[in-house]
Every structure is written in structure tokens, then in C-alpha cells.
């Protein structure tokens, strides 16, 4: 055992003291951060698509523009960019923070009150109700006089950030502009659009990016629907009532069976295991790969025989597996510390509010504990299989062919991550939990469920038994394979090795 630890310690040191090792550890979060940030940057730097409209009715566009302006005003309340308070007129600045703090439903009622003569929510303070009533006209005027540029400073969600309306109506000129890519698309609203929807046309050279078409189509449809309702002599309130969509309130069952409201933290909690599975998978992959590389290097560097003159093949194998396990634990510990620092330390120290609050997930000992445990169990299982096969090979190329079947199995959890995350206690998830090569990943995946205690106990026992069997088989192959030179053996010969008895005096 002592010798095994000596081997393990050397293996560990050799990996851990290279600069590349720490660089790799640091790169991981950097890459993840980039993956998270780049789409946001791309989104923010996106150039607004310019479009034009030929309105044959002469009335639809006025209504649509009015609706665009109202929607933008809604973003002023719901998605206000901090630091732009100075831009607000004094009469609005006085009570704006109070409006900002309201929930979206109440804010929606305020928008309705301002622009559609709707009723104010009775839950509002008298002071706020008075302010809104008093300044209603001033607010509407101020808002309608603002240019697109000015509005877009209040919020990144303003429509002009995405779509810019051009005031061109000559069809030849429009076609030319499309041709020269000055214009992304133009719409034609037919004369009889309210009556039968005919004559609506969308002209663009890009028919795959449908954002503009869908957005504008929805605006026009709403106008047409409103018109048809009013032409049918339906009371405006009834029309509103018909138009009103049902919005479901997200609720989950609490521990005591009571319903609780779902917020973003709950959703983060539901999906956090997927992130853990991904990291678990990467850690297991990296470390088993490292083990194989080290084993083959040692073999091709002709070190094996020297080592075997001092320690037994089993100690050598065990030492290598333990050493790389230590390396792996170092990697995941470093990652966990970085994650804790980012999700808990950073918000505390710098007072920055992260878009998703993961602090409760990150600090949950159950998640962290299962992550470390499943890393070790998963690693040990694959380490045994791969070190056995790797010992038969003289170079990495040979090894790649031989370990392909094992690596295919290793790929499976990645494909299962999302389906299991959606339904952590579904029958697919339950059945897969009992397949030892998948157990660590599937059970981690289900951590938000969470699975029952019996499931934890039985699957873990199954996995441990499998690990013991894998080690026993690996030992049989390793003690012969590690001294083998020349072509790696075929499947038949490997089975012959596996059938040979393992006793101390057994043939090698």
C-alpha cells in the first residue's frame, strides 16, 4: 500500500506541477464565461434591421406606430437601464422609482391607464394615483416627442434597437434598396386588409431570418383584430375581455405540500444539476484520458519494467489510478472554489447582482457532495476499464481504437442531460440510474428531483460492485498487458486473459 501511495504521489506531482495544468484549470471558466457573454455582446451589437411599409389603407400604420410607442413605454417601466434617471423629466423622476418597483401586472395597468383610458390598480398608493392622474398628459406628450435614439437610451429592449422604420414609399426605390441591401425588407398592407386580409406582402432577400416578419405581422394582426371586433358592434370592454390572454402563474409544491411561487432561483435549482453533470462528465473524461496517456507514456518510455522490479503490477495500476484521482480532485476543487467565488463571493464583495442567483445551489452541500462522490465513483469505474485496455497498447493511436467502445458509452450521458433534466423522476431517468456506467451522471442529473433514498442506496451499491468487478478484470489484463509489446491483442485474446485465474503465483 505504501508503495502504491508513492506511485500515486509521483503521478499527482507530475501532473499538478506543470504550468499547463493550472492554465487548463483557469481556461475552463474563462471559456464558459465567453460562451455566456459572447451571444449577449453579439445581441447588443446587432444592427437594427431597416424596413419600410407601403400602407394602402392609409390608417393602419398610424395605429401600428402608436402601438410601437406604447410597447416601448412598457419597456421604460419593465426594463429600465440603470444610470439614465437624469434623462427623465422632473415630474416623472419624482415617482418613477416607485413605479419601477411595482410588479409587471400593475405596471401593465399603468400603461393601460396612460394610453388606453384604463383603470388604475386600487392597490396603488393615493400619492402615486394622484401623481399619475395629474401628469398623464405631460407624460404622453414627453414620450411621443422623444426620438428613437433618445428612447433607446432608456432600455435595450426598445423596438428601434431591432427594427428601424424608413420613410420610403416608392416601390421601385424600395426594390432598389433591397437589392443594394440598404433595406432588409418592406411590407405592403393591402387596401382590404381588415375585410379579408388580402394584399399583405412581405418582400425581402432573406426569408430565413423571420424576426421582423413575425414582430410586424403581430402588430398589424392586433390592429386588424381590434378593427374587426369594433366593426362587429362588440363593446370595447368585451373586446378587451375576448382579447385577453391567460397567463399561467408558475407554482411548485413545497415540502409540506403547500404550493409555492416559482422564481428564477427555483428554475436555476431545477437546471443546476445539468451544469453539474456537464462538469462531472468533463472531469471524468479529462482524468481518464490523462490516465491512459500516462500509462502508455510509461510503457513506451520503457519505465514499466524498472517499476515492476520494485512494485507489483497491481500496486503500479492502483498507484496510477489514485494519483490521477488526486489530480482530478484538485481540478474540481479549483473549479468549485472559482464557482463559489463567482456566484457567492463576487455578489457579496462587489455588491453586483448576477442575472441568475445561484448562491443557494452553489452552497448546497447535497449538490456539492454528490458531485464529488459521483466524480470519484465515475472516474474509478472508467479508470479501471481504460487503464486495463490502455496497458495493452504501445501508443495512443492503438489505444484510441481499443478504447472506442468505452468512449462511446461515455458519450451517452451528454445526450441524456436535457431529457433527464426535464423529467428527473421519469421512468427513463429511473431505469438509466441502474446502469452502472451511467449511474453517476444520471443520478447527478436527477439531483433536483431528488431521487428516493432507496434509489441512492441501490444504485450506489450496484456501482460500487461494478467498480470492484472492473478493477478485478483490469488487474488481470494489466499485469500481462503492461509488459506486452507488439500489436495489441484482439478481443478474443483479451477474453482469454480475462479467463486466466488471478492468484499470486498465477502465470504473470
Amino acid at each position: 500500500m505504501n508503495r502504491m501511495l508513492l506511485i500515486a504521489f509521483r503521478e499527482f506531482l507530475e501532473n499538478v506541477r506543470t504550468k499547463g495544468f493550472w492554465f487548463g484549470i483557469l481556461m475552463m471558466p474563462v471559456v464558459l464565461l465567453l460562451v455566456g457573454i459572447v451571444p449577449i455582446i453579439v445581441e447588443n451589437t446587432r444592427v437594427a434591421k431597416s424596413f419600410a411599409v407601403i400602407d394602402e389603407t392609409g390608417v393602419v400604420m398610424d395605429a401600428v406606430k402608436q402601438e410601437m410607442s406604447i410597447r416601448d413605454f412598457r419597456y421604460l417601466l419593465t426594463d429600465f437601464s440603470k444610470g439614465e434617471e437624469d434623462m427623465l423629466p422632473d415630474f416623472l423622476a419624482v415617482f418613477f422609482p416607485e413605479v419601477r418597483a411595482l410588479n409587471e401586472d400593475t405596471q401593465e395597468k399603468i400603461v393601460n391607464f396612460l394610453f388606453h383610458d384604463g383603470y388604475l390598480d386600487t392597490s396603488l398608493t393615493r400619492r402615486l394615483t394622484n401623481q399619475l392622474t395629474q401628469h398623464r398628459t405631460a407624460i404622453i406628450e414627453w414620450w411621443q416627442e422623444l426620438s428613437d435614439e433618445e428612447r433607446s437610451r432608456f432600455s435595450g429592449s426598445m423596438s428601434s434597437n431591432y427594427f428601424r422604420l424608413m420613410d420610403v414609399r416608392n416601390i421601385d426605390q424600395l426594390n432598389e434598396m433591397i437589392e443594394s441591401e440598404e433595406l432588409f425588407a418592406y411590407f405592403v398592407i393591402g387596401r382590404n386588409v381588415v375585410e379579408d386580409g388580402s394584399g399583405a406582402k412581405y418582400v425581402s432577400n432573406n426569408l430565413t431570418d423571420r424576426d421582423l416578419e413575425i414582430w410586424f405581422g403581430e402588430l398589424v394582426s392586433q390592429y386588424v383584430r381590434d378593427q374587426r371586433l369594433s366593426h362587429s358592434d362588440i363593446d370595447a370592454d368585451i373586446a378587451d375581455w375576448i382579447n385577453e390572454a391567460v397567463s399561467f402563474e408558475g407554482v411548485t409544491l413545497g415540502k409540506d405540500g403547500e404550493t409555492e411561487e416559482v422564481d428564477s432561483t427555483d428554475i436555476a435549482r431545477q437546471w443546476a444539476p445539468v451544469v453539474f453533470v456537464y462538469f462531472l462528465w468533463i472531469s471524468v473524461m479529462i482524468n481518464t484520458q490523462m490516465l491512459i496517456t500516462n500509462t502508455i507514456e510509461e510503457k513506451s518510455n520503457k519505465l514499466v519494467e524498472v517499476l515492476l522490479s520494485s512494485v507489483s503490477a497491481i500496486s503500479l495500476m492502483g498507484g496510477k489510478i489514485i494519483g490521477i484521482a488526486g489530480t482530478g480532485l484538485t481540478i474540481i476543487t479549483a473549479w468549485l472554489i472559482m464557482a463559489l467565488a463567482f456566484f457567492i463571493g463576487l455578489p457579496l464583495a462587489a455588491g453586483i447582482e448576477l442575472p441568475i442567483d445561484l448562491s443557494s445551489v452553489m452552497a448546497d452541500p447535497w449538490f456539492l457532495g454528490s458531485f464529488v462522490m459521483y466524480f470519484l465513483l465515475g472516474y474509478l469505474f472508467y479508470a479501471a476499464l481504460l487503464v486495463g485496455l490502455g496497458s495493452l497498447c504501445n501508443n495512443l493511436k492503438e489505444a484510441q481504437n481499443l478504447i472506442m467502445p468505452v468512449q462511446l458509452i461515455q458519450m451517452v450521458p451528454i445526450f441524456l442531460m436535457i431529457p433527464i433534466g426535464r423529467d428527473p423522476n421519469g421512468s427513463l431517468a429511473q431505469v438509466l440510474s441502474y446502469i452502472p456506467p451511467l449511474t453517476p451522471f444520471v443520478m447527478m442529473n436527477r439531483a433536483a428531483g431528488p431521487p428516493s433514498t432507496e434509489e441512492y442506496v441501490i444504485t450506489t451499491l450496484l456501482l460500487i460492485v461494478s467498480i470492484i468487478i472492473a478493477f478485478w478484470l483490469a488487474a488481470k489484463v494489466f499485469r500481462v498487458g503492461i509488459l506486452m509489446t507488439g500489436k495489441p491483442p484482439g478481443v478474443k485474446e483479451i477474453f482469454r486473459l480475462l479467463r486466466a485465474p488471478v492468484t499470486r503465483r498465477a502465470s504473470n
Partner: protein
Amino acid sequence: MNSIELESVNKFFGTHHAVSDMSFIVPEGAVYGFLGPNGAGKTSTIRMIMSILYPDSGVLRVLGDEQPERVKDRLGYLPEEKGLYKKMKVKEIITYFGTLKGMARRAAATAADQLLVRFGLDDAANKRCEELSKGMGQKVQIISTLIHDPALVILDEPFSGLDPINVELVRDIILDLKRQGKTVIFSTHIMEQAEQICDSILLINKGQKLIDGRVPEVKGRFSSTLLIEYEGDASNLQRKGIIRVNNMGNSAELSIEEGTDTQALMRELMDAVTLKSFTLKEPSLHEIFVRTVGESDA
């Protein structure tokens, strides 16, 4: 006492009978040569002594112990194919191999320092192994083999691939070990080296022992050879009473059949070629090797 005793040891690899009914004794303090062509079973025999492989049958006693893995720490082994961890430093790797042999880290480090000085490598102690020249690497491997002061040292083909300077270095190390009273076993297929250094030899071919014993004894079992320098047609050298002609152009080693009248034979040769010199002597190991291996292959 004997350092190693083998009694009817057999080793199979699948159907291949790698070592067959092998019995021999290596006396303590001997410099013992394992001779034989490539693939004769030398390395398999050595690996069994080192408990890297286990015999399928027979008795194997190393330093008096029938379970050789128990005495592993008192053996030093330098395999034919050997390497070093490229990224490790010289002193570090020597110390590491010492600890693998059961030495305390501090004792191993002290021993490493002493050996590095003795081998003139003290300047290289902190170099990485990948920076070493081939000869220096060879020295580091030898130091790693000797760091724990083994009672029995086994060197598998220690001379293969070495330049003359390093051949001399290794030879001096073997002789030095002998002076210290250690038992040294080395395998080789170069007979001249064995002849220079060995007290005793074991000659094996195809997994079987052909001859073993002290070098003078072994030689005594073979008839003499006649070393001649000559001019003339070499085919005239082949005549009755001569078993084998090892012709080297201007000279030849003639193996003489037991009971041949050497005086008469020499007179015959004088008539056949122009004889410039001749010496009657015991056969070289090379000659014995070629004769016995040739016979066993026939």
C-alpha cells in the same frame, strides 16, 4: 550460500514454452553471465527472478527465499529497455526509485548524493532527465539500480547500444560490485564481454539450458582449438579431425575433434596452406556458443 537456485522451472506464454525445465545455481559473489541468442529465454528467466513474472512450475529460490517477491527490495534490476521520467530531475528520480525499494526519503536522498559524486554526476543533480546525454542517462539508470545497495544486481543486456567509453564504464561498475562482494548477473549475446568479466556462465537456447558452470570448467569440457595465421586457399583448411572452421580471412580458429592427433593435423595443414603462426588453446566462449547453439538448433 547461493544467491539464486532454479530447479526445473518452466514458463509458458500461451502455447510458447519460453523457459523449459531450467535448473542452475548462481553462487554468492559471482559475476554470472546469461548467454544465449535473442529470444533464448534470458529475459523471461530474469523476470521470474525479479518476480515480474511467476514460473508455471518448478522451484525458484532468490537469496534463499522461495517467494522471491519478498526479497525484491534487496535486488537491483536494470532492464534491457529502460527509461527515465523525462520531466523529473536527476536526484529526484534516483531518490524516488530508492523509496520504491523501501528506503526512507532522507536516506535515499543522501545515498543519491553520494552515488552522484561517485559517478561524476553531482553537477547534473538538478537537471531534468530530458536534458541528459545518452551516457549520462545510462549512469542515472545504473545509479537508480544501485541506490538501495542491493545484494544481487541483475543487468539485462547492459552493453547493448553503448559506445566504447560507456562499455568500459559499465564493465568497471560490474567489477567494482564484485569487489564489494555483490552477486552480479548480466545477460548478453556478445561473448567477448562475457569472457572478459564472468566467473560463471549459463548458456541457454530456445528456453533450454545448454551448459552452465565456472568458465574454466565449461571450457575444459570442450576440445581445444587451433588458432592459425595463414595464406592460401581456405577450403584446404577443411579436413578430417577438424569439426569447424571459423575463417577470418588471414587467420582462422579451427575446432579440433576430441582424440585427434594434433601434431599430424598440423603437418597436414602446413602442406595445404602457407602457415605463418599457430597456437593451440582452449576454445573461446564464442566458439563454444556457436558450436553448442548450432548443435541444439540442428
